């Protein structure tokens, strides 16, 4: 379970104060898949980084399975897998297997556990053919499979994906969608940010809409459809933004 309570985060960018998160609160139950929707610069990545303990926060607190992100980041890191972007976090000069083994070692996995897990992920993503090849020269799809495998090598209970399909082709995007389905069956808790509405409506149980650092809606997807009397998430998102912020249209 993830509890985000009254979280604010401010930056100084080019001598200008920017409020990236403004008193954000929401809760994600165990086993839920939450879509984090927002435009570029709305605060999605900042929020995910704060949950992932990568960014400190100025106000409020975030609890992951009862552990505070500021006080117990190490406890949270063992439970969490994170992927920022669709095909990032890889070492090009190492082979796919060496990448996975390195991260498994950093998560404190034994050699046996690592071998079993790599075999499992290799089967799941069809990576056997390129497991012992250097990452340099991989296609986007191959890199994405490996990136996802790297982020969940330690079989985390909670997974954060930040715009995982941005810049990927249809095949690579489908790999991601299939993975989310599989993880859902394993009762994993997932938050992923996206601005691809079909993806969100296809995969998520609930959505959190963020605009200019504020949550403008958080709730179950089916409740949102009923409330708005529409199943067009794109339309709903735009209308929420306009209602939540009068000057949006301008």
């Amino acid at each position, binding site marked *: 379970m993830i509890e985000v309570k009254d979280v604010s985060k401010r930056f100084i960018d080019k001598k200008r104060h920017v409020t990236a998160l403004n008193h954000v609160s929401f809760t994600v139950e165990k086993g839920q898949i939450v879509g984090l929707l927002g435009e570029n610069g709305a605060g999605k990545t900042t929020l995910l980084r704060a949950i992932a303990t*990568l960014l*400190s926060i100025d106000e409020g607190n975030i609890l992951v399975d009862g552990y505070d992100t500021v006080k117990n980041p190490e406890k949270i*890191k063992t439970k969490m897998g994170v*992927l*920022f972007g669709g095909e*990032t*976090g890889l070492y090009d000069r*190492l082979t796919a297997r060496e990448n996975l083994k390195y991260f498994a070692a*950093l998560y*404190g996995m034994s050699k046996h556990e690592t071998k079993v897990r790599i075999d499992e992920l290799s089967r799941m993503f069809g990576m056997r053919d390129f497991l012992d090849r250097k990452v340099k020269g991989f296609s986007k799809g191959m890199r994405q499979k490996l990136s996802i495998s790297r982020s969940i090598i330690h079989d985390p209970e909670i997974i954060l994906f930040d715009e995982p399909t941005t810049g990927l082709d249809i095949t690579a995007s489908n790999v991601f969608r299939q993975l989310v389905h599989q993880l859902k069956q394993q009762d994993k808790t997932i938050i992923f940010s996206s601005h691809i509405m079909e993806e969100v409506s296809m995969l998520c149980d609930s959505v959190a809409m963020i605009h200019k650092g504020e949550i403008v809606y958080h709730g179950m997807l089916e409740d949102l459809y009923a409330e708005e009397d529409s199943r067009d998430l794109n339309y709903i998102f735009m209308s929420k933004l306009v209602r939540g912020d009068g000057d949006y249209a301008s």
Partner: protein
Amino acid sequence: MLRKVYFKELKDAFRDQRTLLLTVLIPIIMMTGLVLFYEFTFFSSSEGEEYDLAISEGIGDEERTVFQEHENINLIEFADPVDAVIEGEAQAAVIFEANFFDKLDTHETTEVTIYGDTFSRNSSNLIQEVTLALATFERAVVLERLLAEGIDHEIIVPFTIEQSEISEESMPLNLLAMLVPLMLILAIGIGASPSASDLFAGEKERKTMEALLMTPVKRSTLLIGKWLAITTIGAVIGIITLLVVLLEIQFFTEHLLSAFQETENMFLIFAMIALIAIAYAVFSAAILMLTSIAAKTVKESQSYSTPVMMIAIVPAMLTQTMGVHEFNLFHYSVPILNFFTINKELLLGIINIEHILIVIGTNLLAGIILFAICRMMFMKDKWVMD
């Protein structure tokens, strides 16, 4: 965990062609070039070399006799001797004033002018030879005149001047003492720079840093692992560079080798230099790490580290003009500067354990202080996130 981070970084770095190139090839090329340059430019003797001296057409035999003892000077007549030097047809020119010998006979003041290019080594050597020949001739004229007056020639030599050298420095060793540390310092800096840039700025650029920070490994552990990896690369490059210098001096040089053989315990001295190079690698790795953490991209990191590495030229020039007896605690305590002072001392055959320990200690201390600054930066989101 530290071991895993360290070995992974080394494996990753040595699979990088740039690292391999800079670790092995660059020291070999750089050292070969410099050793041979010094061997053939600075140490080559002018003994046995012949020079062409331009003289005016129709010059008399008397003028020619001035140079007869100098068999390496070929006298060549030109209508315009100065023009011949400008055109490169002779290395220098000498022009005697009209009726030079008649004026000497009548005790009138007369003049000889030497033309040459002092920026050219050959021209300089010839000017020296011509000056020497003229000075000898001048002395002979004075003696002859004194004799004619019945005066003992010793009247013009009231005392003699003796100069006794207390320094053990020889020109070749002095140059070697600047060449070796300069090359070492550049090789360590240039060689470790790509890896250092890659390990922090590169990780931020590729977004592997976020993945790394999401693991439960402490940031300090990651930082130490990376620092040790950069240090190892720098130290390996330093030792390879030193080995290349040793082998090239041994097999490809004559003058450098003889200068090198004048010093006792040369292998112990090179072992000491290797030890100091390792201590310097610790310090330079911390500098490179700092520039890499401060940068967001590899390119930016390298634009910071390149001028920092060039700082080494300044102490190289400073210590070149100083004798080892002039060095004091300051010269042994300031990193980079002390790399030159201690190497100069060692290459001149002086093994002073106290100085060696000061140099190693100050390099390690400066490395640790810089590491503490790096750690403070690495703990802050601003420096690790793009």
